[in-house]
């Protein structure tokens, strides 16, 4: 346990340079690359007004040396101040806070659908290597990693909304005639459950299925591929042959000997997929008008709201780094062979 604590401390310390680098890079992107950052940060209204530009330059501290500017930027970030959006006329942190819950809801739903199906499909394929079931899984997962998520979303909408009328219209979290439940957590599904609003709850579930399925397809595909390869790898190990020779039942052989070892690589892959999910969220939320971080990013792009886009970049970078950190820790906890 002592070794584990040491590992934990070292791993936490190693987060610092990565996150620092991440912040440095976004700072570099906004402050050093072409043009006046005041123009970039201030948006189109400032461009046409030289006097306002001067004021803004002073306000942003752009007349100070670069390292001082970076220091100011860093201190602001430590206070969770991600900057001010001139286009929306408010602090970005405030807006991001409101946009977080819908995205988390969507991402969690996608993981709940994607992870079990992906892992099961991988095991299913590995146990039938080079048979019909295996080919079906391999072709499906090839499709899953090749299909752009926004195109898949579109096909889902055509099939399940336009043709089959099974899904609700692809605009937002709830049907427009329903009011949002009283906000307790900010998560529509949880809030409607807590306030006992069953209509809203059912409607929210109905709305989240299609975008979540769209997002989960890539997760299913990647996990199935990894799980299949990892399972095949384990099945051919010497200890598996020994266990088989001893005469253990196939059920125990697979569940106790193969599966537990084969599951390990999926931890890392799931973490990486959650990073990719954040990219997919931008596209999916844009298609489904889902009022989360992704739609916020899309709207910021449309209005050239640079500070907001940079805030999203930093935020998703930090979240991604933390997810990988948790995956590393989890790996150590789950795999007794990992020694610190």
């Amino acid at each position, binding site marked *: 346990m002592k070794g584990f604590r040491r590992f934990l401390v070292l791993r936490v310390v190693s987060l610092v340079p990565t996150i620092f*680098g991440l912040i440095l890079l976004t700072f570099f992107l906004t402050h050093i690359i072409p043009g006046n950052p005041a123009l970039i940060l201030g948006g189109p209204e400032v461009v046409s007004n030289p006097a306002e530009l001067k004021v803004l330059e002073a306000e942003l501290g752009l007349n100070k040396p670069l390292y001082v500017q970076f220091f100011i930027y860093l201190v602001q970030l430590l206070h969770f101040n991600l900057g001010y959006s001139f286009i929306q006329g408010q602090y970005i942190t405030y807006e991001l806070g409101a946009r977080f819950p819908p995205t988390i809801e969507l991402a969690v739903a996608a993981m709940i659908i994607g992870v079990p199906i992906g892992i099961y499909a991988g095991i299913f394929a590995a146990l039938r290597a080079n048979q019909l079931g295996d080919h079906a899984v391999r072709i499906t997962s*090839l499709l899953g990693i090749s299909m*752009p998520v*926004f195109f898949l979303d*579109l096909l889902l*909408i055509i099939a399940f909304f336009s043709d089959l009328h099974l899904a609700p219209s692809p605009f937002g979290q709830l049907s427009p005639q329903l009011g949002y439940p009283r906000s307790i957590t900010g998560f529509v599904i949880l809030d409607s459950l807590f306030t006992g609003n069953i209509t809203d709850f059912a409607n929210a579930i109905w709305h989240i299925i299609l975008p979540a399925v769209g997002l989960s397809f890539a997760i299913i595909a990647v996990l199935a591929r990894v799980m299949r390869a990892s399972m095949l790898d384990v099945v051919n190990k010497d200890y598996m042959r020994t266990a088989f020779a001893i005469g253990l039942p196939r059920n125990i052989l697979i569940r106790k000997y193969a599966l537990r070892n084969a599951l390990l690589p999926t931890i890392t892959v799931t973490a990486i997929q959650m990073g990719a999910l954040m990219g997919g969220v931008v*596209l999916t939320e844009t298609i489904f008008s889902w009022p989360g971080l992704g739609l916020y990013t899309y709207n910021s792009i449309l209005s*050239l709201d640079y500070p907001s886009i940079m805030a999203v970049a930093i935020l*998703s*970078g930090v979240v991604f780094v933390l997810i990988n950190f948790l995956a590393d820790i989890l790996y150590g906890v789950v795999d007794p062979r990992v020694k610190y």
Partner: protein
Amino acid sequence: MKEMRRSRSARSLSVPLVLFLKSKTGLASLLILLFYIVLALFAPHIAPYNPLQQNLSHSLLPPSRSHLMGTDDLGRDVFSRIVYAIRLDLEIAFISVSIAYLIGVLAGIVAGYYGKIADNAIMRVMDVFLAFPSLIFAIAISVILGTGFLSIIVAITVTSIPLFSRVARSTVLSTKNELYVTAALSQGASKIHILFKHILPPSIAPTLVLYALGLGTAINVAAALSFLGVGIHPPIPELGAMISEGLTYVLSGQWWISVMPGLFIVFIVIATNMMGDTIREVNDVSLRR
């Protein structure tokens, strides 16, 4: 002596190549890619209409004999636009992935071979690049650089470099201590000589896998950026932008404007993914019987 060496190196290259062409997936992926390349190269001869030519009296026509894949809201021929869009997307993919390959592999080899300070410096920078979800990073870059052809290329290049250098570095770490490298060193070969003659060649195959996969990713990212409005702008045809343009018509039944370009993205990316997988398989000695 010289003759012998040449024949040997020719054989070592041709074994995986023959295996690649013999495998169904390898051949299929190559044919699909060639089909796209032909479309791209001869776009002006293949496209039946001018991709920018509007014809409002022919707007929103479903696929028919005169308009293979229908027309869009401005009466432009969807198939002609797709052909030109493929030309543009392939250009973006090949340029950006090639640049990323050169820079990434070189950086990875240097990091792996020289180790210590070089390794730390290079890989820490790569770690920071990898810390962003790649699409978000690509969006940030192209927003700052201003939208267009060049900034898409920069965005894709920058986000793919770390992947190449990671893989190149890991192969170098395993070949670095091989006996033949030590032998060359003891015969007085220079570090540069060893780097290019002994360390570089074994890392070609694994990075080639990534190159093929990277082409597909690049097309996906280019399409996603254009779809979000930070890539190629209308009226220039680009596959992702075309999907976005047709979006409003999908719900009213004119599905072909978005779906046709989408299908063309899916097939090329499937081909590059199959190609990557097959290159990996034919170079994996342990899988060979």
